């Protein structure tokens, strides 16, 4: 198999380039893309990428594989390699620090902007706050986000306005707290999202939905926020 990897080390390279590796892939098991990266690193230890849990829950190893964002650790070669070729690039739209490692500063800034924490200034009870299973179910499909950045960096609106459009990951979290029966800051949250950019730059392209490695649906969450904002005006 021919693996082509994006390389850039600011200490030695004036510009990025693609480096080709010819790899013998064992046929008896379906390797993950992360296994391939580890094999490459054994032959060239200067290759840098992030990884940790290797099971799709920590969100470290979001990369672009043959044009599609996903987690290297849960993407089997059989689903991504085309014509015995694999191109691995960093997540698009963010500054590259080195090789496959991007600067996620803009991404996290947008996450922080939505106040991704429960706001409830009432004195908490001695035990837990009660929540019905039906209300809890409203958080399913929202709280599972692993902040890998695959969605926002696949979103043309985020590429265009990474400073002003919150992006799918941040908005998914915004809705996770808007939908929580225990949160009391709905009005405040919506007020902070009503400008023309934060939410309304979403054009329903749905790249976020097609790449999310956890099968989440940020577009639907954004639709709910939109409706809440519009109902508020009406």
């Amino acid at each position, binding site marked *: 198999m021919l693996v082509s990897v994006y390389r850039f*080390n*600011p*200490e*030695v390279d004036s510009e990025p380039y693609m480096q080709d590796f010819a790899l013998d892939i064992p046929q008896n*098991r*379906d390797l993950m893309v992360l296994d391939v990266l*580890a094999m490459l*690193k*054994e032959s060239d*230890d*200067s290759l*840098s*990428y*992030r*990884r*940790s*849990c*290797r*099971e*799709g*829950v*920590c*969100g*470290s190893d979001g990369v672009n594989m043959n044009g599609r964002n996903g987690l290297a650790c*849960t993407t*089997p070669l059989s689903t991504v390699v085309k014509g015995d070729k694999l191109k691995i690039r960093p997540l698009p739209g963010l500054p590259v*620090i*080195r*090789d496959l*490692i991007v*600067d*996620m500063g803009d991404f*996290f800034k947008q996450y*922080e902007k939505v*106040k*991704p*924490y*429960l706001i*409830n200034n009432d004195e*908490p009870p*001695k*035990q*837990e*706050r*009660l*929540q*019905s*299973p039906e*209300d*809890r179910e409203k*958080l399913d499909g929202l*709280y*599972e986000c*692993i*902040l890998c950045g695959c969605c926002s960096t696949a979103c043309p609106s985020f590429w265009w306005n990474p400073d002003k459009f919150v992006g799918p990951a941040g908005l998914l979290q915004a809705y996770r*707290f808007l939908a*929580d029966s*225990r*949160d009391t800051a709905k009005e405040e949250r919506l007020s902070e999202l009503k400008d023309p950019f934060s939410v309304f730059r979403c054009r329903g392209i749905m790249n976020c939905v097609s790449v999310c490695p956890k099968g989440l649906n940020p577009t639907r969450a954004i639709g709910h926020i939109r409706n809440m904002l519009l109902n508020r005006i009406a």
Partner: protein
Amino acid sequence: MTKIPELNFDAIIIGGGGSGMRAGLQLGQSGFKTAVLSKVFPTRSHTVSAQGGITCAIASEDPDDDWRWHMYDTVKGSDYIGDQDAIEYMCSVGPEAVYELEHMGLPFSRKENGRIYQRPFGGQSKNFGKGGQAARTCAAADRTGHALLHTLYQSNLKAGTVFFSEWFAVDLVKNAAGDVAGVIAICMETGEVHYIKSKATVIATGGAGRIYASTTNALSNTGDGTGMALRAGFQMQDMEMWQFHPTGIAGAGTLVTEGCRGEGGFLINSDGERFMERYAPNAKDLAGRDVVARSMVLEIMEGRGAGKDKDHVLLKLDHLGKDILDSRLPGIQELSKTFAHVDPVKEPIPVVPTCHYMMGGLTTNIHGQAIMVDEAGSERIVGGLYAVGEAACVSVHGANRLGGNSLLDLVVFGRAAGLYITDVLSSGISISEPSNEDLELAMSRLTRWDEAPHTSDSVPLLKKELQNCMQLNFGVFRKEKNMQEGMMKLSELRGRINEAGLSDKSKVFNTARFEALELQNLLEIAEATAISAEGRKESRGAHARDDYQERDDENWLAHSIYDPLTKQLRKRDVNFKPKTMEFFEPMARTY
């Protein structure tokens, strides 16, 4: 030597997982200048992989539940070398710590009455072992660790905690008095080295399952804080005690929660027999993890393993039905499909005991303060050094941890250390300045890697040899001959690692440089494990030897203390003095 840039803090927490972030939150609220340093962005820490839940007697599933029953189970689970004062503290303070998490927004699963959902887990009982199986593990589906870690990160954002995200801690700085005066750390993005000076240094770096070839642990679980502490000469307790989780996916090593068995799943061998009925007639598949892991290995060794190589057993879940699996074990379905190519709704999952948790660690008291034990057995507290979570041995898990107790340990002792350090800082302590030589000593390891010529003996190769050595010689069953061979192999590896050099010495996010530093941490921990395992001449909890097959309370109802300076083992008394109740007497441990 040029002066290293210095940063000043009242408290620095090394590690941004559950325990580190809980401590950070507590200290952040104190108003003291605090920072949490983590080599990965905090939500990437391994707490995120915890699945089944957090065990705590909040009396939701059973209104009569009592923290003392939880304490009994934990003491028994520890095979009686868990410290009873610490276990009492954890189990009694637990409910408060869990309610705090809920108030922060943790999305626990719920019961019809709106309270937190609790599921049965291994080793749980009602009424001090006399009332049958309890259901005491509070869960957010099968993603409790993820929910907990993200909630803690979010709460820290709300509180304005300072994070050094993607900073790598290299070594502790010790002053002339032997106190810890901070840490040398690298900003991974720039490669710049800093001395972070602090009056309190908290090690919250988690476990080191990566000393084994097959582990549920993340690639980043290299025990960096433990390695640093060992190099600085601090003692470790009960390092022979490594938990092998019964259900790691065969081949991949990824974890399948004990909650699967809690929800009614069970293990079968190649004959389709539910073999745990033979080994643990009462608790069956919900016996202690050490008991279940050993039973599985015996089944495989006696030829009743499944698959073409007969090298694993099967976890059967299909009888639970799709609805239960969808609502309570959605993450497991995802992991099984990805890593075992099996849909648990239809087929059983191939599983094998897999290294999961380090019960041992830096010896601490319930405030997280590091303790040293001298030859006469008297103890002293190390100034400026604390440890919490998996990196600490406080000891609540003894020789075998119960499922769901690690998340509780994280929040209870992260919080306890935060509270205690707040008091200490308020009373106005100072740590004397380290000298230039002290700083150079802490820098020496990094300096060597930066200067050593490139060798063909590579870090990935040396790491593989170390992991295979541990897997082969210090696994579920241990033999004297193998352990001695393992110890020889480790000393050979130490020589080679001391000589190894990197080809890439660049500074910007040089992951090869960090992996080299991690390898040395793994080596320190592997050696502590090997010497402790060889030294404990009995079988207890997770430590099972073929030459000493029985538990020996007369000689070994004790903690082992490993001293890295002499590489010798000594004993330390187990605490049998809970504050509010009678202690639990050691008994034969059956399930």
